[in-house]
């Protein structure tokens, strides 16, 4: 960019001749103009991104406003767009997230602990690390294909809450592992050494010190991972989630013996993003309003989770100072 700012060759000593002094001034002025101009362009790029986010949310809110009524949350999907609601969808999202969190968080945190605290520096560890980095880049729909072949057909879990929860747990795994490792890495070694000096075993050091101190970072990463998982659509469509579900999963508690039932993990399900996708792909405008309303609910959920993550990060950062 700046090559064009110096049209005449400079004299050997520009400070002497007044003519080239003027050239130099023009040169500096030009460069400053480009410098400022780029700043404006960059701010515009930032504004475009932020405005796109704003436009997206406002568009959803305006389109969907008339549908967001208590009834919308309390009724099943229907052929009549005015009666259709998201009851089975949000309950499904909640139930699937429960399975995802139950499987994904312990597995991810344990893997992160191993890699950061226990793993010897050898080929196997290196291989696991590269593998995790690679998994983070695999498109989510490929996880869906794996789940279709493995969970749905090979393990005979069917198109159930269990299959869906496991799929999303595996999808969230790399995020949880990375967040755990980053959180653990911030703990100074002196904390560990102090505990070892008092005779603690490795697991005692890990469970009494490393884990509690890194909890803030781990929680933040976990919430972000779950907020990604709750918006995932493609892998769940791939495993064959139904788009029209007019019933709820079996309640886990009952009044008859044995009082506790795990039937719900085998039930068919739908989730919010799939419900929204179903409505978006219909040509009638009335259904698209339903889609917008479902989108608002989905956005509020993910934004709230991200807000919680940011708040958690700030809170733990200000509380712990090594």
């Amino acid at each position, binding site marked *: 960019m700046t090559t064009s700012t110096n049209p005449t060759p400079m004299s050997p000593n520009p400070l002497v001749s007044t003519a080239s002094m003027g050239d130099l001034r023009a040169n500096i002025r030009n460069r400053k103009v480009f410098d400022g101009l*780029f700043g404006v362009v960059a701010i515009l790029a930032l504004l475009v991104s932020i405005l796109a986010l704003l436009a997206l949310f406002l568009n959803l809110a305006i389109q969907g406003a008339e549908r967001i009524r208590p009834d919308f949350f309390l009724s099943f999907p229907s052929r009549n767009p005015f009666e259709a609601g998201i009851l089975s969808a949000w309950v499904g999202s909640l139930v699937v997230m429960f399975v995802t969190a139950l499987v994904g968080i312990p597995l991810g945190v344990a893997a992160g602990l191993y890699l950061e605290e226990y793993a010897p520096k050898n080929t196997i560890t290196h291989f696991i690390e590269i593998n995790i980095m690679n998994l983070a880049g695999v498109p989510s729909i490929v996880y869906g294909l794996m789940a279709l072949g493995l969970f749905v057909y090979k393990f005979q879990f069917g198109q159930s809450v269990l299959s869906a929860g496991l799929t999303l747990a595996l999808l969230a795994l790399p995020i949880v592992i990375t967040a755990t490792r980053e959180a653990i890495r911030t703990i100074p070694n002196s904390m560990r050494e102090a505990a070892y000096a008092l005779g603690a075993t490795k697991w005692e050091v890990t469970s009494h010190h490393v884990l509690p101190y890194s909890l803030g970072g781990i929680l933040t990463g976990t919430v972000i991972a779950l907020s990604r998982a709750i918006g995932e659509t493609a892998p769940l469509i791939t495993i064959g989630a139904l788009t029209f579900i007019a019933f709820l999963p079996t309640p886990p508690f009952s009044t008859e013996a044995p009082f506790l039932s795990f039937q719900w993990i085998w039930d068919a399900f739908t989730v919010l993003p799939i419900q929204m996708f179903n409505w978006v792909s219909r040509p009638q405008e009335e259904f698209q309003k339903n889609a917008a309303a479902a989108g608002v609910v989905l956005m509020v959920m993910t934004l709230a989770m991200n807000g919680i993550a940011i708040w958690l990060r700030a809170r733990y950062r200000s509380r712990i100072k090594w």
Partner: protein
Amino acid sequence: MQLDSTTTLETAEPMVTPLRAGPLLRKKKAKESVITLMLFLAAFSSVLVTAGIVGTLVVESLAFFKHISLVDFFTDTQWTPLFSEPRYGILPLVAGTLVTTCVALLVSIPMGTSIAIFLSEYANKKWRETLKPILELLSAVPTVVYGYFALLFVSPIMQKIFPEMGAFNMLSAGLVMGIMIVPYVASLSEDAMRAVPSALREGSYAMGSTRLQTALRVVFPSALSGISAAYVLALSRAVGETMIVAVAAGMQPNFTLNPTESASTLTAFIVQVSLGDVPHGSIGYQAIFAAGVTLFVITLFFNLVSFWLRRRYRQAY
């Protein structure tokens, strides 16, 4: 643990009870190794996931390639697996993926790079720390919501510019996908630029460069491998993105490089088949795995390139 009772046996009256590898210690040791094993298994499960992905894709697509030759797969220009006379050429899907990806990169690379330069070279810490989380919200929006946005907000606007364009087109899908990817490009490139030692920057400023000159001639070239890693990762994201194209690009396989037309992509095709009722083990079922394996190989290749580039720039300083 190494302390043994034999060392203290000589003293007549030991002051402290000698440490023995007694049952308590042995129990503790056993517990430790069980825990270590469990943690290792948790870490190793990620390898099993990869094995599961590769295994499933390979088994199902091998079954597919028993019926369809590789030559047909790569050269046929028709992809109609659900027709009565099915044709299985992957090219239309690859073309669709290529077009949407290119449009997305044309948006996200210039925008992301200039935002990264701004955040790293122009903005102070306070600006950076407020702007980055806001920008990252863009990547937190569920992709199906982006799909809605592309189809019902961006597409009508684009139709005013290109009046002959249909509601489903690759252009709007690609544009929205580009916006979605901006945070990846911006934040990864910014990390790479900030890793450039400030001595280089100071040297440049001492020679009288402006911020822009320093950014473009010193910082950008020094961070080039990290920045290109960011670009490649963005590319891989765009190739694997599903819901935006499934909603907004139409799902008709169409062998074209014209972004104003509608077309299907590798990912959108998988969604389309999954929505229907395709019986397990049928050729349609196997076809989505063939598309999946193509997708997996493409993204794996780009991820490895990105990984290699990133490692190179880490070694640089």
